[in-house]
C-alpha cells in the first residue's frame, strides 16, 4: 500500500463519514444541531482537501483548505448568533 493510496483511501472514508453526518444536518430537530453537523462537515472537507493536496501532488489545494478552515468558523459563529426567537442578528 503506497502513501498515495493510503491518503486517497482515507479521503474516501472521510467522504462517506460526511454523508453519514449529513443525516444530522437534514434531520436535526434544532438549528444548533444542524450547525454542529455542518461544522463537522466543514472540518471533514478541510481534512479531505489537505489529503488530496498530498495525494494528487498539488500544493494549491492547501490554499483552498486554509480558506475553508477560516470560513467554516465564520459560518458557525454567524448562524449561532442568529437567534431564532427574535429572528435577528446582532
Amino acid at each position, binding site marked *: 500500500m503506497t502513501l498515495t493510496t493510503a491518503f486517497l483511501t482515507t479521503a474516501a472514508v472521510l467522504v462517506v*463519514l460526511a454523508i453519514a453526518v449529513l443525516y444530522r444536518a437534514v434531520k436535526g430537530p434544532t438549528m444548533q444541531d444542524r450547525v*454542529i453537523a455542518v*461544522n463537522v462537515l466543514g472540518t471533514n472537507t478541510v481534512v479531505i482537501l489537505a489529503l488530496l493536496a498530498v495525494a494528487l501532488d498539488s500544493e494549491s489545494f492547501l490554499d483552498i483548505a*486554509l480558506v475553508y478552515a477560516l470560513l467554516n*468558523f465564520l459560518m458557525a459563529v454567524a448562524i449561532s448568533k442568529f*437567534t431564532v426567537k427574535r429572528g435577528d442578528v446582532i
Partner: protein
Amino acid sequence: MNEIRLGAIFVLLAGGVFFTFVSAVGVIRLPDVYTRAHTASQTDTLGAGLVVAAVVLAYGVETEVIKALLLLVFIFITNPTAAHAVGRAAYEEGIEPWTKGDERR
C-alpha cells in the same frame, strides 16, 4: 522516505480516521445538542488534527509545510470556538439539556 516516518504517517492516518469516525457516530447518535457539540468540538478536532499532522509529515521540510502547519493551528483555534458559539446559542435559546430517562431528540 525512511521507514519510521512512513510508519508514523500510517499510524496518524489510522488514528485520525478512528477519531473522525467516533465523532461522526457521536453527532448522529448522541441524544441532545450539548452532547453533540461536545463530540464535535473535541473528538473531531483531534481526528482532523491527527490527519493534518500526517499531511505535515508527508510534506517533510518543503515550503508547503508552512501552510499545513497553519491549517493545524487554525483547526485547533476555530473548531472549539465554533462549538462554544453553538452551545452558547443553544443555552440562550433555552434548550434544556438531556437527562437520563428523557426522550432522545
